[in-house]
């Protein structure tokens, strides 16, 4: 087990170096001279040459890469071209709204998706099951921005129950923070709920027809014990896998949701950075999200061993 974790750590480092190279080359391979892009359209030749020298762009590529990579390891993510402020500072300012939205979305999606899937499997062919079929078609196919604007229109503009847009930092009180996050969380969760519920249903259905479920019934176990004690843990590996995948897909959804609901998070930062060709920000966010992906993958793989004793590394 320890050896496995160690091996995974080593391969993680390898993956991150590859990702780093790719992200690094992104700027170098983009059309045009990075120095010219950074300097802007109205820059003179001397200004561009100055920037080239300052950024070390005259060094060979590998040297540049090593400089850049060690900078990141030291926490130096570079300077934003557009605002001139350190990227690390910009990202940490935007971290709280994004983390709040992501965590709430995952909690809601897992709770609702897993319970929905269990109920649908328990009474397969019944009302809940048919409801899930209809709901998942809806959840898969209607994009976040359509659901988002619909929710805003109905719950905020028509009913005045919830704020239309924006974000309230958690430091200003849990109430406003939560109220602002309700609609974006729901809008972003629908697709994930559909996805997690479908997989949970399929996995549970398979487990429910296993011989050991009949053994549990023959022991006198209650329906609750059968579903949540005997079946759910056996159905857990695929469910855990889709939860991990959902985390990975979350990042794309967050960008859209933050735009629709005007939340000042990482997603918005990236969208603005792309519009402004603010490469240092794009690179940093890419590196950080890739790191997060790899970490989630590792966590999920290790979590398998907790639910299924037959899985040993």
């Amino acid at each position, binding site marked *: 087990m320890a050896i496995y974790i160690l091996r995974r750590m080593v391969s993680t480092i390898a993956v991150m170096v590859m990702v780093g190279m790719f992200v690094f080359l992104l700027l170098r391979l983009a059309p045009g001279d990075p120095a010219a892009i950074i300097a802007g359209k109205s820059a003179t030749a001397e200004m561009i040459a100055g920037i080239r020298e300052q950024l070390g762009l005259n060094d060979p590529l590998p040297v540049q890469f090593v400089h850049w990579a060690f900078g990141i390891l030291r926490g130096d993510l570079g300077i934003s071209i557009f605002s001139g402020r350190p990227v690390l500072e910009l990202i940490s300012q935007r971290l709280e709204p994004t983390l709040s939205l992501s965590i709430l979305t995952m909690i809601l999606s897992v709770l609702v998706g897993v319970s929905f899937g269990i109920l649908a499997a328990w009474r397969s*062919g019944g009302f809940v099951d048919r409801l899930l079929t209809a709901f998942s078609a809806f959840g898969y196919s209607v994009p976040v921005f359509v659901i988002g604007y619909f929710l805003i229109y109905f719950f905020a503009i028509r009913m005045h129950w919830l704020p239309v847009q924006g974000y309230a930092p958690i430091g200003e009180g849990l109430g406003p923070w939560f109220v602002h996050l309700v609609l974006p969380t729901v809008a972003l969760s629908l697709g994930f709920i559909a996805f997690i519920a479908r997989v949970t249903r399929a996995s549970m259905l398979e487990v429910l027809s*296993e*011989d*050991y479920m*009949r*053994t*549990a*019934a*023959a*022991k*006198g*176990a*209650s329906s609750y*014990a059968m579903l949540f004690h*005997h079946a759910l*843990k*056996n159905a*857990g590996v695929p469910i855990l896998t889709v939860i991990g995948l959902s985390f990975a897909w979350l990042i794309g959804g967050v960008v859209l949701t933050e735009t629709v609901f005007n939340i000042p998070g990482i997603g918005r930062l990236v969208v603005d950075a792309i519009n402004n060709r603010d490469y240092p920000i794009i690179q940093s966010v890419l590196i950080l999200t890739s790191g997060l992906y790899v970490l989630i993958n590792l966590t999920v793989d290790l979590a398998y061993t907790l*639910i*299924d*004793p*037959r899985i040993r590394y």
Partner: protein
Amino acid sequence: MLMREFAGDDVLLDVRDLETHFYGEESVTRALGGISFQVKKGETVGVVGESGCGKSVTALSILRLLPKLSAKTVGGEVRFHGRDILELSDREMRKIRGDQIAMIFQEPMTSLNPVYTVGHQIAEAVQIHTKASRPVAMAKAEEMLRLVRIADPERRVSNYPHEMSGGMRQRVMIAMALACSPELLIADEPTTALDVTIQAQILRLIVDLKDRMGAAVMFITHDLGVVAETCQRVIVMYAGRIVEQANVVDLFARPAHPYTQGLMRSVPDPRRGRQRRLPEIPGIVPNLREPIVGCSFAPRCPFAIDICREKRPPLRDVGSSHAAACWRAEEVMGA
């Protein structure tokens, strides 16, 4: 034995006209066509017949463990201690399962939950039916493992099923079934999936423990050898009905139904040395989706006459505690 007056105090299980149907896309399979039998306290009854004759369906119907969507017990009574358990609520039925009536299944490899330790799974049965705390239940689980003669029970109690062999897993199943000292143990082909050498051990174990605990056992099997070794009384099933029942000595000495005779002939007898060819019963099992006119065995029966193809023979007494559903039982016994 057919007479209801005999339903005295010593009758534990009294099944009357039990009828179970399976529902397919467009057809109904009459898996049990109305069967009646009794199991007395402490008695060992064998239920024999070939695959698909309704042996397992009988067991699952009694415990009400049939798949809900595709099967239904449509008629009859299952009187346990005089009370019809088909009428009980799900909640009341759960109190009986695993406590008063327990079951061992055919497939030890898949009948245990792979993600929990065997100790946990035995302890669960104890905890469902008693107010025992987890440590007490786990101690009981360890005791049960010792009882089913698993070596090193202190250690084995925290093993997962995949760390055990098939024979050991079946011992765990037995430990689980007996943990609450049931009055009736239904063993559905408990040795079929095991190695021959292990089969004998498991059989002996069930018989020993049954005697020690005073439980009645319903032994479902297709193996007449198992019946001869373990049972006091035998029920022979064919096409969803009981065709013969008798105590084990009478059945083997004077089988009264041609099907029973056929079954016995198709068992290899080592005393006779190498046989040219094992006799088989000609023909195939009838399709239970179609209504059957007359005796369901008639198309395969060497004794069949006109009445056999027209009228279904009732189960009738052909001797003391010996009944058969055959119009020509007397001639069959004499043959």
